[in-house]
């Protein structure tokens, strides 16, 4: 494998008594696209928030570009963050700024570029995500899918070495999903960018991933239950993994309760039989 860009080792995160991440370890090499999968509430987004340094782990280490961001003071994190881009699930655009100003923001703050050049870069990035001519719109004036694409353009503004994406294709139509997938693939395979993508969209996941990990639910909450290339995941023996990638309602991850479980959950556990002394 190529030189690692991300090395996560024994990552544990507890919120009170609840353990959300329980000993996660993985490595992402340069130019790879790692897809993180798992059911809702399994800790995917929490894991991503650890990777971008907004949540600190209870224990374990996270090395990005060789630097341990888990123990790094906030003031030094900025240096690492300038090297990566992040696409938030909601786009997270600044509502008070136009689309163009949002995309230009990282360039204005860190690029020290001429305003003419910034204008040009903004147009190029918006062209990449199919939003030419939307520079002067405000985020409230465009659709949710468009906001997400602007978020992607902003994440790519500084040509990052590493891109994190949280559900990049949710809310996009099939054509735009293919465009975003193709863009991610082009950036990683042709330009050597590394990508970490959290997604539920299996078509998209198998289209872009070079490697995949799946987080478990229930008793295996917060652990990696499967890891491998897309082909290895497709033929993974775990019924949990198969249920997830095939999108089946019945399987080891139960969504429907048995009649007894349903009555117990509804009315509480039956009282212990009354005994007379």
């Amino acid at each position, binding site marked *: 494998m190529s030189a690692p860009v991300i090395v996560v080792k024994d990552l544990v995160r507890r919120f009170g008594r609840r353990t959300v991440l329980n000993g996660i370890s993985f490595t992402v090499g340069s130019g790879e696209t790692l897809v993180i999968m798992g059911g809702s509430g399994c800790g995917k987004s929490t894991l991503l928030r650890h990777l971008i*340094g*907004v949540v600190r782990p209870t224990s374990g280490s996270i090395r990005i570009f060789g630097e341990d961001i888990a123990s790094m003071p906030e003031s030094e994190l900025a240096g690492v963050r300038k090297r990566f881009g*992040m696409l938030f699930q909601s786009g997270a*655009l*600044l*509502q008070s700024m136009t689309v163009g100003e949002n995309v230009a923001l*990282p360039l204005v703050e860190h690029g020290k570029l001429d305003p003419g050049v910034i204008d040009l870069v903004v147009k190029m990035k918006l062209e990449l995500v199919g939003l030419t001519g939307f520079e002067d719109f405000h985020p409230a004036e465009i659709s949710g899918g468009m906001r997400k694409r602007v978020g992607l353009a902003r994440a790519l503004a500084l040509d990052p070495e590493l891109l994190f994406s949280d559900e990049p294709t949710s809310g996009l139509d099939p054509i735009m999903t293919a465009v975003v997938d193709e863009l991610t693939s082009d950036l990683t395979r042709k330009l050597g960018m590394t990508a970490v993508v959290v997604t539920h969209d299996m078509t998209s996941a198998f289209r872009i991933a070079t490697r995949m990990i799946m987080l478990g639910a229930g008793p295996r909450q917060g652990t990696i239950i499967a890891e491998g290339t897309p082909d290895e995941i497709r033929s993974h023996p775990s019924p949990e993994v198969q249920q997830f990638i095939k999108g089946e309602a019945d399987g080891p991850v139960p969504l429907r309760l048995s009649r007894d479980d349903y009555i117990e959950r509804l009315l509480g556990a039956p009282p212990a039989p009354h005994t007379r002394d």
Partner: protein
Amino acid sequence: MRALVALNAQLLYWVLVAPFRGQMFHAREVLRQLVIVASHALPMVALTSFSVGFTLAMQSASELRKLGGEMFVPDLVSVSLLRELGPVLIAVIVIGRSGSAFTAELGTMKVSEEIEALEVMAINPVRFLVVPRVLALLMALPMLTALGNCMGIVGGWTVCRFMLGMNTDAFILHAVRAADAWDLYSGLIKSVTFAWIVGTVACKAGLGVEGGAAGVGRATTNSVVTGLLSMLVANAVLTAIFFFGE
């Protein structure tokens, strides 16, 4: 409390130290906030101050008339406005108008991941969002207070001129004789102090929002209540320092 102290320390760093290290705050954003905080508040400040000056003159005239001291109405209006009513009244307006808006705006940005997005883009939210708002407030509040003082005195003059039959020269003579420059300066010093308190309390409440729309509502209420109480305590302390120790 610890978060407020930390925010104040960061604010001082970004305003006083960082510009000399090449990390300047956004002057354009300070101006934009100044327009929102000051110019949009002008009609309300002018009307409220005029009304308070007007009613203050009527109330004092009805009492002073009993003692035959109607000519002292301008003295009372000018001193009470410059020293106390002006700065406190305008601060109350600004807490309700701008302090609550700062909290709601930053709180909404927090729950919609905008603040997190700034941090991930290596943009410090205090430099980007808090510094322009607090600096705008530091400039706006003394200006609004000065305007409020003027409008309050005009309100007092209206009563004296048209209801008490006092001529304008006499009004000015009394108003200026009663108040000295220190009354004006002390009021302006108070307004700068209030601006800092209101700005930091409101921004801290906004940045600390947890729990969606309900959290924004709670934080906004807390920000207004804490801002008002802190401002009133600061006012009492400053009045004691400026006037009570003499």
